[in-house]
């Protein structure tokens, strides 16, 4: 064998990559989505995301449902913070119809939305802990999410898919018990959150594990239309609550926490800080409610807001309104609106076209998860598999919001 032959022979030994299916049902992905990874040992060379495993055609279904029946659909988008989705939808319809909501109701809504934000961030952050191997924080802080769910239960009867509030206000006022539960929650939560932070925030193992893991630059994040905590972790202070205030958010005093590197640790820290801000917003809202006239929980719009049940049984007018609303016979103006709220994951937008019919002509959801998850393949390229898992959980990818 000549020397030349030997050289060509060694060039013929090609490097082979292995293919790894991460998902569709993998315990570490916390949801149903698949990633086909091209692996070089433990390093990810390329990734392709496949989504749509729990697609439920909400945009199509919404085209055949009366407006009030679309609220339960929005529950199932980001099911970790369904009340924010519900409120966003109510506000979109109120914007279309032109209903002015009383201040007290707006503040009550703020309380509900901020509780939902805390519940959402608690799940995401504690799961980041679990994926780094710290189960304890998750188990303890989940008691607090349970307490938030108890408040939801008192407000609307449901826990996860809440269908909370109605077009024109809330379905009922906060009960005495709800206020007690809320006060108790506000008293206990800071302590528990502090304890959770003590476990992770300055923990050397946690920091080594998360700093520099799955980073994205501000430029790339903006180009990918990121929103919410993921965008703020990259250093862009975009928050819908401040940029385009709704539900009287302009009257509240809070800061927008921002990160610098856009990595897992920054995303964790931004969410952590946001929970503190949410607690402060709830306190401010309670103070504001004390100055408002008591007992108002909806706007005075009999055409859209169901009358009290006692009146429906005894009063002809109330019965007519009840029948018209339930059968979807109310006059809905023609129009086209876009309304966005700051959901758990960022700008959650509803683009609604009405042709005056019973149901929307077209309803499009701007789902922050769907939009930022496409950057995942780019973010994990060149990373270790275990970092990819951590990146995914810190991005808070919720399958319900991803697939609509």
């Amino acid at each position, binding site marked *: 064998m000549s020397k030349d032959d030997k050289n060509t022979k060694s060039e013929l030994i090609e490097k082979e990559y292995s293919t790894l299916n991460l998902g569709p049902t993998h315990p570490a992905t916390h949801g149903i989505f698949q990633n086909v990874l091209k692996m070089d040992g433990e390093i990810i060379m390329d990734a392709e995301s496949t*989504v*749509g495993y729990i*697609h439920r*055609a909400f*945009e*199509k*279904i919404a*085209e*055949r449902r009366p407006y009030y029946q679309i609220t339960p659909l929005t529950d199932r988008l980001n099911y970790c913070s369904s009340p924010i989705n519900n409120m966003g939808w109510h506000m979109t319809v109120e*914007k279309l119809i032109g209903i002015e909501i009383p201040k007290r109701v707006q503040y009550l809504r703020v309380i509900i939305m901020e509780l939902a934000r805390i519940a959402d961030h608690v799940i995401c952050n504690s799961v980041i802990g679990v994926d780094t191997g710290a189960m304890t924080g998750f188990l303890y802080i989940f008691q607090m999410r349970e307490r938030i769910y108890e408040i939801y239960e008192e407000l609307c009867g449901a826990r996860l898919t809440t269908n909370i509030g109605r077009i024109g206000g809330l379905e009922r006022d906060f009960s005495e018990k709800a206020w007690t539960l809320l006060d108790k929650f506000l008293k206990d939560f800071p302590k528990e959150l502090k304890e959770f932070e003590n476990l992770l925030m300055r923990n050397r193992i946690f920091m080594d594990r998360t700093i520099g893991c799955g980073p994205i630059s501000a430029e*790339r994040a*903006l*180009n*990918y*239309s*990121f929103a919410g905590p993921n965008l703020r972790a990259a250093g*862009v202070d*975009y928050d819908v609550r401040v*940029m*385009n205030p709704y539900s009287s958010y302009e009257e509240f005093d809070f800061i927008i926490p921002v990160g610098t590197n856009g990595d897992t640790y920054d995303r964790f820290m931004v969410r952590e800080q946001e929970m503190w801000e949410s607690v402060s917003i709830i306190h401010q809202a309670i103070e504001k409610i004390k100055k408002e006239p008591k007992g108002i929980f909806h706007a005075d719009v009999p055409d859209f807001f169901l009358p009290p049940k006692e009146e429906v049984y005894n009063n002809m007018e109330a019965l007519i309104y009840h029948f018209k609303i339930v*059968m979807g016979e109310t006059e809905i103006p023609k*129009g*086209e*609106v*876009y309304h*966005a709220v700051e959901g758990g994951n960022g*700008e959650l*937008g509803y*683009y609604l*076209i009405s042709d005056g*019919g*019973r*149901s929307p002509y*077209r309803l*499009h959801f*701007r789902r922050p998860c*769907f*939009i*930022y*998850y*496409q*950057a995942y393949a780019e973010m994990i390229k060149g990373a270790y598999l275990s970092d990819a898992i951590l990146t995914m959980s810190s991005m808070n990818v919720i399958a319900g919001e991803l*697939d*609509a």
Partner: protein
Amino acid sequence: MDQSLLSTVGDKLKTQFGAGIISSEMIADYPVFIVNRDIIEQVVKFLYHDETLAFQYLTTLAALHYPDNKGHELGVMYQLHNLQKNYRIRLKIFFSSNDPVVPTITSVFSGANWMERQEFDFFGIIFSGHPNLKRILNVDDMNYHPMRKEYPLEDGTREDKDDRMFGR
């Protein structure tokens, strides 16, 4: 602010593209511009790079279907945002369902990738130049585009449900 934004953006677009800008009006709180389908990519690029306008954030993108507008049945709505000055505008294009080809804007916004794939999946709009135009939420071997109005949500042969009572 919104009214002045309509004229600021409208004037700039008119001088740059002339007849390519078909109409401009305020719809609710949004300035909406209907532009020629063929120049949509240039318009988005122009708005992105213009120093005063700088629409560098794509909020969302949604396809529209109006089967009664003969010759302009399908459409796409783009929503752009200038995060520094908080300007928000909406662009729209309309075209025939026989020729549903639209230039992609993925060269400007990476985030448009999946948004365009979604609208291809549900409305059959072909975004020419898209790097990976295939179905995203529906199964790959589906042979129709379910969000189009010709596909009713419920079985048309059912007699137990009266559309006057329960329909649209």
